[in-house]
């Protein structure tokens, strides 16, 4: 008797979660997948077209451009974030005065809605009177202002910088948690043995940090693929579509009334994210084995 009622209770407690997830995740995902097999355009009658949208997608050069951009963006951003995040985590790990304040400060970029901070960045990158160009000219780094938002290279780096700014805190916090699990005795022993700071970092810190690093990498990569807010506000995908991420590309199709094609793109993005997740998990487990 206890077993049965326990099972029943178990499910009852989970009903709200199941309902909410079923309606607002499962149904839309399935719906999106199904829509991707249809011609769903606002000014045309709906029609089942099988894989037509996908065929069109595979020969769509604009899509592959946005795909390339997204991958490049993810690679560079995530690497920079891990690098900076590690340094910041090392700083925050120590018992320095103002530690509490620093921890609040580090949260600010992550906590402010990116759509809002993007406007501040818009101003900072402004060609004529933005902060960065002012600094560049004042410091003599260049004789002419840099076209941050109006050139494809400039726009690319503008987005990378702003995104690194926004998500390094998140990486920092995760790495900080990882650092705190490393027993202080290991360091003490190493110091007594005479190993210097650098060796301690590479032989103790990094290896023990690896599982956390992998988790951070995984989350960040999958997250970075979805990038939308920053690009929509800062560059709108331009100039000339050069900074359009795959999410933005799908969004533009939804906005122009072509839900079928937008859905196909969305499905592809979803598959890409899943593939990466699986890849990471496999890779993560492999390195675990090697230790």
């Amino acid at each position, binding site marked *: 008797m206890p077993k049965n009622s326990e099972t029943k209770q178990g499910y009852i407690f989970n009903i709200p979660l199941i309902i909410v997830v079923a309606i607002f995740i499962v*149904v839309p995902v399935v719906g999106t997948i199904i829509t991707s097999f249809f011609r769903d355009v606002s000014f045309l009658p709906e029609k089942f077209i099988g894989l037509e949208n996908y065929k069109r997608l595979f020969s769509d050069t604009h899509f592959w451009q946005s795909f390339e951009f997204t991958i490049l963006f993810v690679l560079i951003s995530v690497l920079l974030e891990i690098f900076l995040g590690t340094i910041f985590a090392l700083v925050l790990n*120590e018992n320095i005065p103002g530690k509490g304040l620093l921890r609040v400060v580090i949260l600010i970029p992550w906590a402010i809605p990116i759509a809002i901070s993007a406007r*501040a960045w818009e101003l900072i990158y402004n060609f004529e009177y933005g902060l960065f160009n002012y600094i560049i000219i004042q410091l003599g780094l260049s004789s002419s202002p840099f076209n941050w938002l109006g050139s494809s290279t400039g726009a690319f780096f503008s987005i990378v910088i702003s995104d690194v700014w926004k998500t390094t805190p998140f990486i920092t916090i995760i790495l900080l948690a990882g650092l705190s699990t490393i027993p202080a005795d290991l360091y003490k022993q190493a110091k007594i043995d005479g190993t210097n700071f650098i060796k301690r970092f590479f032989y103790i810190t990094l290896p023990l940090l690896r599982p956390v690093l992998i988790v951070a990498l995984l989350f960040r990569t999958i997250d970075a693929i979805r990038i939308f807010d920053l690009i929509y506000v800062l560059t709108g995908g331009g100039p000339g579509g050069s900074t359009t991420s795959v999410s933005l590309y799908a969004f533009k199709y939804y906005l122009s009334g072509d839900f079928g094609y937008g859905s196909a793109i969305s499905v592809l993005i979803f598959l890409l994210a899943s593939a990466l997740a699986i890849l990471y998990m496999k890779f993560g487990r492999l390195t675990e084995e090697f230790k």
Partner: protein
Amino acid sequence: MNEERLKQIFLITGGIVLTAFCLLPFLWMIIISLGKNPDFLSGQTSFGFTFNNYTAIFTSSSVHLLDYLKNSLIVSTIAAILATIIASLSAYAITRLKFPGRILIPLLLLGFSMFPQISLLGYLFKMLSELGWINTYASLIFPYVTLALPLALWIMLSHFSRLSKELDNAALIDGAGRLKILSKIILPISLPGLFSAFILSFIFSFNEFLFALMFTIDYKARTIPVGIALFEGLYGQIPWGYIMAAAVIAVLPIIMVIALFQKYIMQGLTEGAIKG
């Protein structure tokens, strides 16, 4: 010792870089919001310290700043409350009761959290249109609850799993029902966890942009990230002073939250990450 000195230097420089790095755009926002000429760096105009930008955006009826703020606060709070409640219920059952699927649910949820929002957008929009929920709070609250659930669940899971089952057993023997145990015994001692879950869900909902952009149309339901992102101001050229003033006001709630609850946020994030 040399190394100690090096370490000191590293830490101090690191601290300064960290602070400058994190605060730069925010400080710039504040500076520009207090000046008449956002282009003062070009050298052709002076800065012109003024509070005008703030008074202007509050007194102008077409800016709707307070409406956006109100909408954001209501939507985020309700979504966070619902997410925390639902997560608590599920987490309790998963850690206390045996039923098939108790491991599957959190894993599936984790999987779902990887979904790019864009994959949900199109069909969700159609669903919400049919329900007539476009441009209402409901169109945002329920999706936000769903998006916040994975993290909220993992936080509550990690908290509840650390609580001894003896507490429950003692009450069970006394004849108490599971729900009563949860609400009267478990929840009161899980306040830190609840708090973390609530705050993180709140922050996440407050910052959400894509859904708010597509599911809301005007000031009646529009949230503040969308409001500021699309802010054009009252005159043709981009009125940076106004935008920055509005932005500063918009982020004040969040800054207050993280200043007060930094500990809970950190805890929640690390739990979610380590468990993941």
